[in-house]
């Protein structure tokens, strides 16, 4: 991502996946990096399943409007979250998703990158519960101005001491996935649809998209 | 006062709204004349904030058992160290004689002109079931006993509940028993049965109820439990 001072991120998944924790850690890291930050989330019945999301805005300037309409960077950890939130990414933005959980479909004008977050958490780290942190490590690897130290520190401060090492390893595993993928080294399960050359569709202008509330969200 | 050695500066009387609430005008203690039904929450807050206060809560039967009924059961459950005295005259007197939760089936009032279709609460049993640790009932006829029962509540640490059977000759008496206050008092003598001679499994009626200490157990009062918890949390103990 180019550093024009402002970054809008949406983290989405289903209740219980630690979406809010991932967003809070990201926001902590942004604050530690000295930028202004606002983090919001949708609360409610989503905590019991369904698609839930949390948003982080980072900026060099004071942040007024606190919500993300079209994200620069979207992370989707479930099919429902992908279906609902992936298209709320700006033209040229990046959608990062769990390739083991999402049947990817084309979204014109956005770059899609699927990485095996859950598989990595389960097979490499032996703990499915750190899937959110693996994906956070990957997400942060796309934010060049965010020092890995700041993210490590934020994770260490948020998780219980006895899980600190596991979570730090999870971050590192996430970064490694991005490194390999960017270097063109094959990763089992990884998918990449670089749409940077594609023509932007009309709805991808920088204007807010009204998100219809789903009935089951109320 | 009965050898209780209360520090008058530390006594606070919380009253509800009703005939009983007038008491706050007659006493030379600090008084809080609360909103209708809310005397117990006010008193709970004051006692928890300053455990050194000696708090007496005076309520009417409608005040305590209707609009304030939920507060009564929760104050009893918490076992906050309060002495609650309910003046039960079986009717809303101040507003002119409407039925209350202490009005018995068949009783007449200005809102039960054909006789009350609802049964009355037994307030002492209600307080006991909700967790009050000292429960007593007395009558205005047996004045000395009533004073002793209230004093017992003041000495007891925890939630004390004293039901004082009062007379409202103006409304309840005139509609149901007698408009003559002396006669009404005398009837109380006939209706009241010492608790040890009362059939506890039998009904409590308009003209038959037990008097004396009905229930008395020791259980840590709320402030003591909270104070222990506060020390565990690393805060200062006491108030």
């Amino acid at each position, binding site marked *: 991502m180019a550093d024009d001072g402002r970054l809008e991120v949406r983290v989405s998944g289903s209740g219980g996946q630690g979406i809010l924790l991932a967003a809070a850690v990201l926001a902590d890291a942004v604050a530690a990096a000295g930028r202004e930050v606002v983090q919001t989330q949708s609360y409610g019945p989503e905590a019991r399943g369904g698609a839930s999301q949390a948003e982080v805005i980072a900026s060099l300037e004071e942040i007024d409007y606190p919500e993300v309409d079209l994200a620069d960077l979207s992370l989707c950890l479930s099919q429902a979250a992908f279906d609902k939130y992936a298209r709320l990414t700006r033209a040229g933005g990046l959608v990062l998703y769990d390739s083991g959980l999402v049947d990817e479909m084309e979204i014109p004008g956005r770059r899609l990158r699927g990485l095996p977050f859950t598989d990595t958490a389960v097979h490499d780290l032996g703990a499915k519960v750190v899937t959110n942190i693996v994906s956070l490590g990957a997400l942060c690897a796309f934010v060049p101005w965010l020092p890995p130290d700041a993210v490590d520190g934020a994770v260490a401060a948020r998780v219980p001491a006895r899980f600190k090492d596991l979570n730090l390893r999870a971050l590192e595993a996430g970064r490694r996935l991005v490194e390999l993928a960017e270097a063109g080294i094959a990763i089992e399960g990884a998918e990449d649809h670089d749409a940077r050359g594609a023509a932007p569709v009309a709805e991808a202008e920088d204007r807010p998209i009204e998100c219809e509330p789903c009935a089951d969200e109320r | 006062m009965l050898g209780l050695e209360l520090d008058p500066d530390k006594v606070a009387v919380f009253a509800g709204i009703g005939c009983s609430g007038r008491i706050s005008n007659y006493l030379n203690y600090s008084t809080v004349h609360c909103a209708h039904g809310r005397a117990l929450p006010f008193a709970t807050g*004051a006692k928890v904030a*300053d455990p050194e206060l000696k708090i007496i809560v005076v309520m009417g039967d409608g005040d305590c058992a209707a609009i304030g009924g939920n507060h009564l059961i929760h104050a009893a459950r918490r076992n906050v160290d309060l002495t609650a005295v309910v003046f039960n005259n079986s009717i809303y007197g101040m507003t002119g004689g409407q039925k209350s939760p202490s009005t018995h089936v068949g009783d007449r009032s200005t809102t039960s002109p054909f006789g009350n279709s609802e049964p009355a609460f037994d307030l002492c049993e209600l307080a006991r079931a909700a967790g009050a640790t000292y429960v007593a009932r007395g009558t205005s006829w047996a004045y000395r006993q009533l004073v002793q029962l209230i004093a017992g509540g003041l000495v007891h640490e925890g939630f004390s509940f004293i039901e004082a059977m009062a007379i409202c000759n103006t409304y309840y008496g005139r509609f149901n028993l007698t408009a003559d206050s002396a006669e009404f008092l005398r009837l109380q003598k006939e209706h009241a049965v010492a608790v040890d001679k009362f059939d506890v499994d039998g009904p409590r009626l308009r003209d038959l109820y037990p008097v004396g200490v009905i229930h008395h157990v020791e259980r840590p009062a709320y402030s003591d439990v909270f104070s222990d918890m*506060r020390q565990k949390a690393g805060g200062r103990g006491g108030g």
Partner: protein
Amino acid sequence: MPQPRKLVQGNEAVAEGAIAAGARFFAGYPITPSTEIAEILSRRMPEVGGSFLQMEDEIASMGAVIGASLAGVKALTATSGPGFSLMQELIGYAAMAQVPCVIVDVMRGGPSTGLPTDPSQGDVMQSRWGTHGEHSMIVLVPSTVLECFTLTVDAFNLSEQYRTPVIVLSDAMVGHMREAVALRVEDLRLARRGEPDCDPDEYDTVVSTLDHILPRPDLGSRFRVHATGLVYNRRSGAVDTSDPEVAADLGLYLREKIYHHRDAIVRVEEVGTEDAEIGLFAYGSVARSARAAMKAARKKGVRVGLLRPITLWPFPTGAVDRMAEHVETIIVPEMNIRQMAWEVQAAVAGRAKVVDLGRVDGRLITPAQIEELIDREVDHLRAR
């Protein structure tokens, strides 16, 4: 060297503000989206030697807060719409009996159970007029996480100074939002509860004036305190419901003791208002959208100014006056339908056009919505 900043949630900042202000008593009842305040204070109050009570309902919570305040401890409760409605009965008592206390209302969509998890500004009129009878009200509206902290501290100070309940009117957006802030507790100026400067026997002969509001002695002190919800003689403190003059004296005093000090109490933020042709009147979380819209409009060369009330009640009539004198149009975006727009319109008294922008779907008004309205109003102005 930047100040140490921490990511803090709005509700958390309210809780820490209360502790910093010297509050040592909380009573409440769980309700979304205010619950974090109770959860945090259930831990923090015992840690600092204070008390926490979870009551049976919001009426009882407000009663316990009043009891604790009368016993000499700074006290607060926190709730949302349905609970705020229940609290009105005893907010009226606190106003009548002049008991300092703080009520935090984290607004959600209504009426009734409404939209429990979504923000709203539907309680702005209830916060002013929710009780029966006549009395004044102080209501503060935070727009940022930092303000959730500072305005809670201010609320306690104003409450002690004027012996009145003060409301912090937050909303689900500000309450659940996290921002990186440094909560500085060292420099805070705190009101302290004192005793009247007189002998206890003379207490019922001293009387507060508008310029000198005496502290109330605490229960358990040397003084005999008599609090009541009935009309009382402001001089002797004795209940008196038969003398119209006594009732009038008290009624006017309860209103005037705040209005007389309105210059000291009312605070607003004015941005770009000096040269504005179009004004925005926005408060709470919506003020953030308004600020973004203002910046965007100014980039396009439209002179837009923002008036953001920090004190919503007493109403900032003076600031609206200033704005009405030189703008053509005032736009009032709010997450309700015309509640404050009416008030602005009354204050503007025809000097400018007042345009409302309401939203009650549980979503924050967006900058784009406001910009669209600005563009429309600019077209109207240019077309004239």
